Each structure stands twice: as C-alpha cells, then as structure tokens.
C-alpha cells in the first residue's frame, strides 16, 4: 500500500486528476449555493415542472444503468453461467456506486433531504409508487453493499467475515433480482398516475413492464460499455481470468441484449396497438418517438445481433454505447421531454447550467470513487489468497 501511495503522490497532477478536481470544485460551490439559497436559486424548476434532470437523469438513468448488478450476478449465480464470474465484481461495484449516487443526487433534489428516511421509518405512504421506489432502493443499496463487501474484506484481510458473506451469495442475488424488478418497474409506474401530462406515445398502462424489460438490456449494455472503458484505462489491473473471460461476457451479453431489445420493440408496438395510438406516429412527437424506438432500440438490437453472429466485439461495443444513449433518451423523454408536452413552449422546462453542472459533478464523483476502488481492491482481478474460493 505504501508503494501505491508514493506512486499516487508522484502523479498528483495527471490530466485525470486536474479535470476531475476542477469539476468537483465547481460541484462543491453549486452544493453550497443549493443549500444556502434553495433549489430555486440553482434550477429552472417551477410549479408546472417539478421534476428536471436531477430526477430525469440522475435518478431515472442512474437506476436503469446500474441494472448491470442484478443482471450479471443473476446470470452467474442463478442461471449458472460461470463464465460471467469475472464480470460480477465490476458490475456489483458499478451498481453499488450507481445507487449510492442516486441517493446522493436525491439530497439535492428533494426539499428537505434530512427527511429522506421518513417514508420508510416514520410515515410510510404505501399507496405511492414512490414509496415502493424508495423502499426498494434503500433495501437494494444495502444488498449491493453487502455483495460488495467481500472485495473490501479481501483487501483488508478479514477472512472470516468474507467467508460469512460469501455464504449469503445466492440469497442476496435472489433478493437483488426481486428488489430490482420492483423498483425498476415502479420508476416507470411513477408516471402512470399522470396520463394527462405524458404524451400518449410514451404513456402506457405497461410503463412498469417497459421499464423493467429495458433495465435488463440497459444493465447488459452498461457492463459491456464500462468493460470497454476499464480495458482502456485499467488494463493493468486485470488478471488472466478476467481478460480471458471478457470476450465471452461481451458476446454473451450482446446476444442476450439483442433478443431482449427485439422483444422490447415488440411490446412497445403492442402498447401502441392496445391504446390505438397509431395516428400519433405521423405527428412531430411521433417522429421523435420513432427516433427513439427505431434509432436507439431497433438499430442497436440489430447491431448486437450482427456482432454476436459474426463474433465481432467491435460491433457489440458500439451497440452497447448506442443502447446506453438510447436508455438515457428514453428516460429523459418520459420524465422531462414528453412530460408536460401539452404546455406552451414558454412554460416548458430546460435545465439550467447549474443543474447540468451538478449532474456532471455527481457522475464525476462516481468515476473517481470507482477508480479509487478498482485500483486498490480485487475487482478486476482475483485476490491471490482467494483464487480457489468461489
């Protein structure tokens, strides 16, 4: 460890450190503004538009893109796809950080963040979908934390604790899938209460199903995308098993995502048919809807399919990035862009610079913490002392 520290000291002013340092500094200033002058001082939110990108991106996209945790761990531990084993730890770490950042971001968005435990411990409003989201996110964050602890215990050398947690793997994985199913879907169901505000092409009685299904390929794509980044920047931290298995993970998830995304296109069309919303497709909103559905679901699905057929990982990696963008587009459409579509343009919401700044700050904090953990703990490689233990 001392060796690591001296290296870190030597390279304090790397481009990475300088850029993240500046972003975090700006973030701290915005934070001070937010908590001394109020939400109104830093956001463009108003009484017609109570939710902006702090919910639309930080919460909606954050949770969807952190789905890699439950997808990868269930593939490995429940469905018995042992070749995904080396992908589980990075996925769990990303998911844990993702959810932790979602909760962190919520502290900026809600009016009185110190009351965030109220819905769970003080005055639960069980008829609310947001209660379901809150409870599940709280429980799942706990599950992810426990699932992540073996990495820390190995790093710290707590053998007994680690063995104890490892015994819980299957139970935790199943619990994680149950909780993910519930809160991923209820994030979509949140908007079901406002059919008069969300554009009919995005509104559906199946919104909760759409959100759950899309969370699966969101998670897979994020695992591939994040793996690509990690290979570029943290290659030296990967052991032979990780490197040998990574192509299998890319091909496996690529194929699975292709199938699920085709299914997603199918259920979206069914949703349009059920509400007989075909005529909206010829409007401007319809065009935008088709951009999302064809350009960011169908297209990457085909790309994924081709990639897995030709064993072309480049195709799959492009498709993964494209899908991540598509998920962000979808969540923003539902929570911000197509929400309040009927309001005149003067009353519509556009995020302020400080809101965008806060979001960039929060994502940056995530990247820095990930890097800190992945360069120190056995995430991308197995700890030499525990090689035979799984």
């Amino acid at each position, binding site marked *: 460890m001392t060796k690591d520290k001296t290296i870190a000291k030597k390279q304090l002013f790397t481009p990475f450190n300088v850029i993240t340092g500046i972003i975090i500094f700006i973030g701290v200033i915005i934070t001070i503004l937010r908590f001394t002058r109020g939400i109104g*001082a830093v956001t463009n939110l108003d009484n017609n538009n109570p939710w902006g990108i702090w919910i639309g991106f930080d919460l909606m996209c954050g949770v969807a893109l952190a789905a890699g945790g439950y997808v990868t761990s269930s593939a490995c531990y429940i469905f018995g796809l042992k070749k995904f084993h080396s992908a589980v730890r990075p996925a769990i770490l990303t998911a844990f950080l993702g959810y932790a950042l979602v909760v962190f971001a919520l502290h900026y968005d809600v009016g009185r963040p110190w009351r965030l435990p109220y819905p769970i411990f003080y005055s639960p409003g069980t008829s609310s979908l947001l209660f379901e989201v809150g409870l599940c996110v709280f429980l799942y964050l706990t599950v992810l934390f426990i699932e992540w602890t073996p990495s820390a215990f190995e790093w710290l050398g707590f053998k007994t604790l680690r063995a104890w947690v490892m015994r819980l793997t299957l139970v935790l994985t199943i619990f994680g899938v149950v909780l993910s*199913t519930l809160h991923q879907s209820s994030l979509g169901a949140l908007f079901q209460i406002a*059919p008069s505000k969300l554009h009919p092409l995005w509104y559906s009685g199946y919104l909760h199903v759409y959100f759950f299904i899309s969370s699966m390929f969101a998670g897979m794509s994020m695992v591939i995308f994040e793996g690509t980044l990690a290979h570029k920047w943290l290659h030296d931290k990967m052991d032979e098993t990780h490197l040998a298995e990574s192509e299998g993970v890319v091909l496996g998830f690529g194929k699975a995502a292709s199938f699920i995304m085709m299914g997603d296109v199918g259920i979206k069309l069914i949703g349009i048919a059920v509400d007989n919303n075909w005529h909206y497709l010829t409007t401007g909103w319809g065009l935008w809807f088709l951009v999302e559905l064809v350009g960011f679901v169908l297209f990457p699905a085909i790309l994924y399919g081709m990639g897995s057929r030709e064993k072309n990982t480049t195709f799959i990696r492009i498709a993964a990035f494209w899908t991540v963008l598509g998920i962000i587009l979808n969540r923003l459409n539902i929570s911000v862009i197509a929400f309040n579509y009927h309001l005149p343009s003067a009353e519509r919401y556009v995020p302020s610079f400080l809101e965008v700044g806060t979001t960039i700050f929060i994502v940056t904090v995530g990247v820095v913490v990930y890097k800190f953990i992945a360069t120190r703990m056995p995430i991308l490689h197995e700890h030499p002392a525990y090689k035979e233990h799984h």
Partner: protein
Amino acid sequence: MAISRRKFLTSIGAAIGAGTTGALTKAYGASNKHFMGYPDGFGVLHDTTRCIGCRKCEQACNEVNKLDKPERPFDDLKVLDQKRRTGEAVYTVVNKFSAAPDVFVKKQCNHCQEPACASACFVKALKKDKTGAVVYDESLCVGCRYCMVACPFNIPAYTYNDPLSPKVTKCTLCLPRIQEGKLPGCVEICPKEALVFGKRKDLIKVAWKRITQSPGHYIEHVYGEHEMGGTSWLYLSGTPFEEIGMREDLGITPAPQFTSGALGTVPIVVGLWPVLLTGVYAISKRKDKIADEERKEAVQTAKDHATDEMNKQLDQLKTRMTKEKETAVKNEVKKALEAAAKKAAEEAKAVEKPPVVQNAAGADTGNEEE
C-alpha cells in the same frame, strides 16, 4: 388493482381516525363496490356565468391564509389579461377568457374525491379529510414534489427559494374556518354568489337544477361531478370547458386506479420471483451435477474399457510368450536330444576314442535336460 385501492382506502381510513363511520375504513379491494367519496363532504359550486372577475376572492384568500402581498394590488384588473396559475403565495387565481362576453374562471385546488396527490405522497403528508378538504401536513413533507407531478389540474406549488424549510402550498378549502362553522374566505366575500358552499351531494343537485331551469344558458355538464373520479369543487359554464382552460380529456377514472395495476404486481413479484429463481438455480445446478456425473461415468467406462483391453492384450501376450518359450524350450530340447543322439551315434561309430571326452559330453547333456 384491488390491492392498491385497499391500501389507498386504508391510508385514508387511518387519517380519519376512529370517530368516523366504519364503512369508510372497510376494504373494498376484493369486492365490486365503488367508493363514492365521503357522503357528507363539503364542496363549492362555481358558476362561471355569474363571475365578474372582481378578484375579491383572491384578496380574501390572501388575507385569510396570511400570504405575502402581491406586487400588484387586487383591485388592479389588468392582471387578468395574462394567464396565471396558482403559486407559492397564491392559492387561487381568476383567469379571463376572451369571448362575448368575457368569461372569468376561478382556479384553485379542486379537492378531488380520490386525490392523485394523496395517492402519490410517499409520507402521507397529503390526505383527504372527511370534510372534503385535501389537507397538507408540512411536518411530514420531504419535498419530492411527486404530488405536483401527479396533480391533473397543476395546482400544488412549491416554495423553491426557501433553502431550509421549503413546502408545498395550495388551497385548504379553508378547513380551519369550516371547523369554526365559517364559510371559506372566497365564498364569503363573493359579491355575485358565483361561489356556493355546501355539501357536495347537494351542490350537484343545485347545479343540475340550474342547468334544467335555464335551458341554453349552460353547457349541460357539471365539471367535477365525474372528472378524475369527481372533485369537491364543481363548475358550471356557458362556454365549452375546454375553451375556458379546463381540460375535458381527463376522463372519469380516479387517479389511484392508474397506478393500482403496477402496485398490484408487487406481492406477486415478491411471492413468485424467489420461488422461480430458486427453481432456475436448482435446475442449472442439477444440470451441472448430471453433466458432471455423466462425464465421470464416461471417463470410468473409458477407463474400464481400456483396462479390459490392456488385460486382454497382456493375456494374449502372456499366452504367446509362454507358447514361444515352450516352443523355444522344446526346440532346445529337441536340438539337444538331436545333438545327443548325433553324439551317441558318433560315439557308437568311434568306440575306440579316449573316455575323458565321452564323460564330459555326457554330463553336459544331463544338465541341459534338467
């Protein structure tokens, strides 16, 4: 669907407390009964054909609720020229819609029979009171603003610029005044009786009576009787409601029902998923085990087969070797015998030869035969 309805009603039931009618706390979830709202709930009938846009109600509301004074005074009627909505210090507004003659419409919380906001609130800070008022409890509010997302009428406002104690603000139906036996501030001050306070069920009768008594004067619709499952505020108009800023596409489904389907899946997911996933795990584990056993068996068979083959070959080899050895021995014996016979014959031919040689040859032959 059933579950959420029950939960919703239970939450409302808890709000009412023990003193109210038992029927209200009863779960209708699994039955085909329909919740009609609180029978004695109050409401206000707003007859827009009577409103003259004097803004007196706005002023009364401001005073009764002790809100911040607006920049422009209440007698400044030019304010009516721009479209307004409720705000953090404005619980009600009157909007003007150009027609012949102009139509004035008062806007405030409609106090829904089954409020979207109350159903959406995850801390029960918003509740439907038995008096009909939808009341807000600031001491519970986290400030998530989901109520504002949920409200189909865009009514609740938020004090965004308050850093430490921001809150949701909206019309209270003047619940404190009702409890004192007084009229809501706006109703009391209205000079044209464009606002009438009373029990909601009576107001519906009044509204329909007005429609039937003045044919052609009103649109034949009481806005709020069924919208979003019904609201405590009811409206009459001579112009189509859509033209006076009131949405006609809201439908008659109470808001909680929109999310009941999604909420209803919760117990099924919680109950079924662990079983299903454990099953999948067991199947994959079992497949692994069977594959393992089959592999072991195949290896064993191959091993056994190989051993058998080897033993057979060994046996064959042994037999062959024994045979070869026997043949070799026989041949040697034969050779020796032949040699001995030859020697004997030679000896017989040369009897006169020295005896020493004869003895040695005889001993040699004897040894070999052993």
